[in-house]
């Protein structure tokens, strides 16, 4: 049976849309190997829903672009003034109501389709109901680092968020409450979810359910002051067992070790304790990162440098060398004290 003209036209359009969707998906998913922060390599439900919507929107807009650009190109070439021009004015056309109605109604229909698809994804993500076994984390944005608290588990850490992997059949999503201690920040780990801002006096939340273990990167996405650039995000997605072990380990107080008591004394008698906490000792400041298990972290200075003894020592001596504009002051210690202090910090496992 031959399809009628209108049907053929419609199915042609659908075919173009499907082909451009599929090719965009194929292209987009290759970007994972290009970048660890690609929005086109989702591993968590919110990021996946957005990915699906983005492919649809990209395909529709690409199709519009191709059609209109072709018209533009055609008219520029076809209606250019020729050398053989007779110098007479072309026919003067003032408009056409039928044509105007056509190119008003078609965009309206496209807008309706795009709107429905978008509204659905908004509801899916923002109105999702999470199961009872959801892990809760409070993320607190500071100039220029992240504090993470696990309510009910009595764990406080900084800059490196640990969450359990979520099984698609028995999901264990993580619910993140977002608050700010100072200016606006934004939590953006592209492979896990879209960004949500951390705004003082305006608590926000988001959720993720990463389905593959691994390290996911991101960074603060709302300008928050001088060192906005080096306020990096690291999310460690671990198997359930590993995550539980990590929680157990983080709950322990700091071990007191006589061999490093000199370094500890320096720590507790200088300005360090005004800002930093080491659980089980006199240090209980909250302005800077909790250092109780400092050595369990891969990086220091919100991901700006690997956590090596040399970097640690440099950081205490002159933070501006790693992160100019950081709110940690240079501690003005002599070499001997620096060594002792670094040695002490290295015992905080």
């Amino acid at each position, binding site marked *: 049976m031959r399809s009628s003209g209108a049907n053929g036209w419609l199915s042609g359009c659908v075919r173009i849309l499907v082909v451009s969707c599929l090719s965009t998906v194929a292209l987009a998913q290759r970007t994972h190997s290009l970048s660890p922060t690609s929005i086109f390599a989702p591993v968590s439900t919110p990021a996946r829903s957005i990915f699906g919507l*983005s492919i649809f929107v990209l395909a529709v807009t690409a199709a519009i672009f191709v059609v209109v650009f072709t018209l533009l190109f055609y008219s*520029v070439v076809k209606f250019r003034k020729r050398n053989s021009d007779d110098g007479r004015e072309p026919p003067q056309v003032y408009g056409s109501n039928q044509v105007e109605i056509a190119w008003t109604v078609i965009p309206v229909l496209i807008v309706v389709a795009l709107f429905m698809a978008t509204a659905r994804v908004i509801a899916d993500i923002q109105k999702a109901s999470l199961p009872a076994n959801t892990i809760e984390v409070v993320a607190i944005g500071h100039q220029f680092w992240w504090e993470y608290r696990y309510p009910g588990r009595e764990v406080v850490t900084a800059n490196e968020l640990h969450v359990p992997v979520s099984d698609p059949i028995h999901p264990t999503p993580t619910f993140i409450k977002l608050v700010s201690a100072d200016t606006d920040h934004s939590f953006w780990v592209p492979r896990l979810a879209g960004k949500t801002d951390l705004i003082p006096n305006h608590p926000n939340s988001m959720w993720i359910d990463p389905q593959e273990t691994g390290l996911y990167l991101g960074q603060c996405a709302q300008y928050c002051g001088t060192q906005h650039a080096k306020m990096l995000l690291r999310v460690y997605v671990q198997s359930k067992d590993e995550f539980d072990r990590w929680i157990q380990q983080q709950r322990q107080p700091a071990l007191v070790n006589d061999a490093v008591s000199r370094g500890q004394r320096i720590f507790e008698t200088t300005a360090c304790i005004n800002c930093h906490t080491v659980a089980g000792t006199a240090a209980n400041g909250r302005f800077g990162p909790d250092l109780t298990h400092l050595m369990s972290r891969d990086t220091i200075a919100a991901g700006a440098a690997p956590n090596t003894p040399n970097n640690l020592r440099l950081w205490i001596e002159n933070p501006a060398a790693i992160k100019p504009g950081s709110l940690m002051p240079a501690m003005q210690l002599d070499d001997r004290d620096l060594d002792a202090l670094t040695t002490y910090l290295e015992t905080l496992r």
Partner: protein
Amino acid sequence: MSADVITLPATELASRPIVARLHEWVTTVDHKRLGILYIIYALVFLMIGGIEACVIRIQLIRPHNDFVSPQVFNRMFTMHGTTMIFFVVMPVLFGFANYLIPLMIGARDMAFPRLNAFSFWMTAFGGLLLYFSLVGANGLYGAGNAPDVGWFAYAPLTAQTFSLGHSTDFWILGILVSGFGSIGTAINMIATVLCMRCPGMTLAKMPLFVWLNFVMAGLVILAVSPLTAAQIMLLVDRYLGGHFFDTQAGGSAVIWMHFFWIFGHPEVYVLVLPAFAFVSEIIPVFSRKPIFGYSVMVGATVAIGFISMSVWAHHMFTVGMGANVNTFFVLSTMAIAVPTGIKIFNWLATMWGGKIEFKTPMVFCIAFLFQFLAAGLTGVMLSAAPFTWHLGNSYFVVAHFHYVIVGGILFSLFGAFYYWFPKMSGKMYSETLGKLHFWLFFIGFHLTFDFMHVPGLLGMPRRIYTYEPGRGWDTWNLIVTVGVFFQAAGILVFLGNLLWSYFRGKAAAGDPWDAWTLEWSTNSPPPAYNFHTIPKVQSRRPLWDLKHPDDPDWKYE
């Protein structure tokens, strides 16, 4: 007005000492001179803002670059954004509107010439105030010498706690003062359009240029007023112990965002409607056809004006507004694509069946169409809120709005410069240099802003003074920076062309383009009184009627 005042011989003016001539420019209330002052002022700031852009791009040419410190980088992007929006694009558009509206409606001047001069000088002093921060902002604190809070200056970064010294104060005052100027000009434009039209020119016979600027002026009043209010509230916060935006005392950072964007989004249309205005004049003349669907174009303009007042919170999709509010702003934002699309189709239909001449102004307008189409479509992507949860505050957004402002507005502005240069200066520009300018700028624009979308999709946020290697952003940023140098070269050719043509160019006739609107019926440059006799019009293209008495437009409209 007595006859001997308005027929002052030109030779006498030219021979007067430079101080006297400068004095005339400073004290002028002539809409044409004020228009040119606006334009020159904007070109100076374009150079400054451009240099700031170059510093930003050199710093980002590779990861962990240390061309400038983070402090300097943050000042650069704040000053770049503030300068380009408030002290380049707005003044240059006001300049063209000031110059052309009275000429196009057959008037001798704006409705309020003195208010016009006052508005220009307010805007001018606003810009100077902003840049005075470089010497004045240190204050007693030794803290920073230029604003570094970003051009939308989100609270609470602007609070005393986080912004010591006076740099933020200069930012506030510069924008506040120039805002008074903008509101004054907007009132003036509305009064001029409503009261100063020549006999026969009903609202439905005004050139589209005048219609678009008329709607723009309405938007300026609606958009700049809340910004002005917010700036005053911020000053109260900083100096009189107010707590509007002071989150440490229970104020709301989100309220500032609403205030800023209820200005900020209509502002986009304040900037883009005049760009549409240029295109709506240039495309018909170089296609040799009247604009297609005049009344639909007017309707679409008014629709854009209305809808643009209800889309502001699409800048705040990541702020945590809740699903329902987000959904509303998705709908309103997508809706505005419809009248904007109608405009693009009408311009295409105007070219369709015409005889297109590729003079420099037209070439810029064709590039405008293509680039504005792309910019509009990335805008549609961004209107899908979940997509913006990724793309908001990323380099994709930066690429998108530069596509609008550079690829759309600036390209049409260059078209306008070349199109009306003969009228304003009385000289023809160099077509060769014009084309060279076009190609340099076109290549530079696409190198920079096409490739800038990609790092955004790969997770690169804006406003970072440096970035980590290994994120897949390096090559893209390198290409983006290379494009900047092509653009800078293009701008230099452009300025060179203006200067060379002004001093050495061939004299221009009154109507070099065989055009149809009233400004081409008088001399180039027009005399101080614009028209020897006030014209009478019967149609939207009065000069077409004159040139084709056998086939006038008024028979068909």
